[in-house]
């Protein structure tokens, strides 16, 4: 058992993957000596060398484009995008090349590429450093999209993502990098990569959340006890594909659901959940699926981010509304 932060969990997971498979290479900006701006790759270049931990030129399309080539050569590249807002120069390579290669080749080519993206707000950063663009990847067929909500998942999920023969966009909740938990590396992961986790059982309504919002929702659920409400909290973990059986089971049980994410409301992940749940649980729903999310504006200057981001109060407000039907 070791006490580990979420950031260190990913670091340890990367290390474990690199030790297990010499074909795993890590690449990105400032990931070498510096260990990445969040120190998630700290120490890796020292131990695995410059050929496996590659500081790239400052060009994101180049990172992903060369990763495609490395994958074609039999490597398993793990690419770091420095911040959420900087993935877009690489968007074409991700959606037209990484995502489609397996399909285009009728299954002959595999693209075991992992794209790590620290995402979300709450760290007081300047613009482009706090975004939640997961829906822009989840809508793209051929990609898988996951995100971890705690240090233990961080450790295992990054390894599962690297082991996946499908390309995985791996969103890391940057404001949770310093959250701590006990990790026992000898206990195998409890769940496969694309399965959701009920982190708190409840009966009155379901909070569906992921990444940075898991902690927020658990806190909200605890606070709701005072109001006599017993909330279930589901950490979705996988966004594409969603683990629909787990989601449906919970909502059918409680009859009410609130989706919570930092991403903007419209055309966000919550809309897909609402659409699916409304269809599958039509006769079980006591209320429409409600969404507590970032607003439909660009991410605001950081002095306003506390208001912009869903927090305990806004989650409870959503719960009030969903219980009001």
């Amino acid at each position, binding site marked *: 058992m070791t006490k580990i932060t979420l950031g260190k969990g990913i670091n340890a997971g990367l290390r474990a993957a690199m030790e297990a498979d010499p074909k795993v*290479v890590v690449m990105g900006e400032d990931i070498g000596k510096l260990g990445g701006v969040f120190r998630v790759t700290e120490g890796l270049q020292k131990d695995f060398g410059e*050929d*496996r931990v590659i500081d*790239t*030129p400052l*060009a994101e*399309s*180049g990172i*992903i*484009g*060369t*990763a*495609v*080539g*490395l*994958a*074609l*050569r*039999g*490597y398993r590249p793990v690419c770091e995008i420095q911040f959420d807002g900087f993935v877009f*120069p690489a968007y*074409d*390579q991700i959606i*037209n*090349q990484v995502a489609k*290669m*397996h*399909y*285009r*080749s*009728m*299954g*002959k*080519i*595999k693209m075991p590429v992992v794209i790590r993206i620290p995402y979300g707000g709450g760290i007081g950063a300047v613009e482009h450093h706090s975004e939640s663009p997961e829906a822009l990847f989840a809508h793209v*067929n*051929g990609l*898988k999209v996951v995100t971890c909500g705690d240090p233990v998942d961080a450790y295992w999920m990054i390894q599962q993502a690297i082991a*996946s*023969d*499908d390309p995985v966009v791996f969103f890391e909740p940057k404001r949770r990098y310093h959250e701590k938990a006990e990790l026992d590396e000898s206990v195998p992961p409890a769940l496969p990569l*694309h399965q959701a986790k009920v982190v708190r059982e409840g009966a009155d309504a379901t909070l569906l959340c992921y990444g940075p919002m898991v902690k927020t929702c658990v806190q909200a659920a605890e606070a709701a006890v005072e109001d006599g409400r017993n909330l279930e909290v589901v950490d979705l973990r996988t966004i*594409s*594909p*969603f683990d*629909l*059986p787990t989601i449906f089971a919970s909502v059918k049980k409680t009859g009410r659901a609130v989706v919570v994410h930092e991403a903007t409301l419209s055309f966000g992940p919550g809309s897909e959940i609402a659409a699916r749940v409304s269809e599958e649980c039509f006769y079980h729903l006591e209320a429409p699926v409600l969404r507590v999310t970032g607003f439909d504006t660009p991410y605001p200057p950081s002095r306003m981010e506390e208001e912009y981001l869903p927090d305990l109060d806004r989650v409870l407000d959503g719960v009030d509304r969903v219980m009001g039907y």
Partner: protein
Amino acid sequence: MSESVPGTPPEVFAPVEVPVSPAQPPEEVEFVQLLTPEGERVEHPDYSFDLDDEAIKGFYRDMVLVRRIDAEATALQRQGELGLWASLLGQEAAQIGSGRALNAKDMVFPTYREHGVAWCQGVNPLNLLGLFRGVDQGAWDPKDNNFHLYTIVIGAQTLHATGYAMGQQRDGVLGGGVDGDAGEATIAYFGDGASSQGDVNEAFIYASVFNAPVVFFCQNNQWAISEPIDRQTRIPLYQRAAGFGFPGVRVDGNDVLATYAVSQQALKRAREGSGPTLIEAYTYRMGAHTTSDDPTKYRLNEDLEHWKLKDPIERVHAYLSRHAGVDHDFFDEIDAEGDKIAAELRAGCLALPDPQLTDFFQHVYVEETPQLAEQRAQYAAYAASFDGEG
């Protein structure tokens, strides 16, 4: 006229005139040439063609056959059997010369027009038709012939090639053998238009910084659909490389001996571990951009007439008959072989099975998602509900 010209950059602050004419007439262009349009061999200080006339006969055969295949594909498109075809007409020498310079382990990243290179790599021409007929999107295994899928998104493949070359580097396969020539290299094909894409320039940077064993082979066919080369650059394209710190060379792209010699040297350099090279093969797109295009809208017929005199096949024909004692039997046989291949290609094309959408659901992921499995099953049931209806 037949000289290799490393980039001479404009002087600092000497005003640079933007060229106004679409493309320089080839007379004024300086490039590496070893066989003139008239079929005469010429010397070059830095490059020589070191194979015999048998090899040249082989190149001739290659060029005639790929032109024949290309013509058949165009005909198939006209007859509605293909949705589209991108002809290589006029670019045979660039493709055969560079394609024949490849070693067995070298890897190729093509655009959508490299039918000649595919031929050199042993790809069955029928495989090329799938994409254009709309039955698949390439779907050959790149490993079978070291020939990656056609890439349609302009320039994207140059980064793939660079990454692949970085993989070769990491695999330690550079150097070795005579002169280090036992190593492996990667070649990336792209067009003059592609040179403007950010991706291509990033590929230059990655290749340069990592000294990757990749040859950038640009077929400057003067046009990017309707846009003449002056929409992409105001100086010769090969000079771009110098600004990134690696050599660039312009070669007569209609001269198969020169494209062979120049490619060979660049590939050797890469295999040895000496890094990237940019080759600009100066050529001309004799046909339309694709069968959907109408070049009469934007270019003059006289341009085409002018380039016909530089035909890549004609000059080898002239050389072989005048200087290598090759008689018409040889040529006739190849023509006959071409007709046979074309007939087989046609028959193969018509026999291509129509694909099933349900099959394609399974190619999205290695590990299919439950959602997709469900959609597939639903669709299969839905489609089956029409069976027997009529």
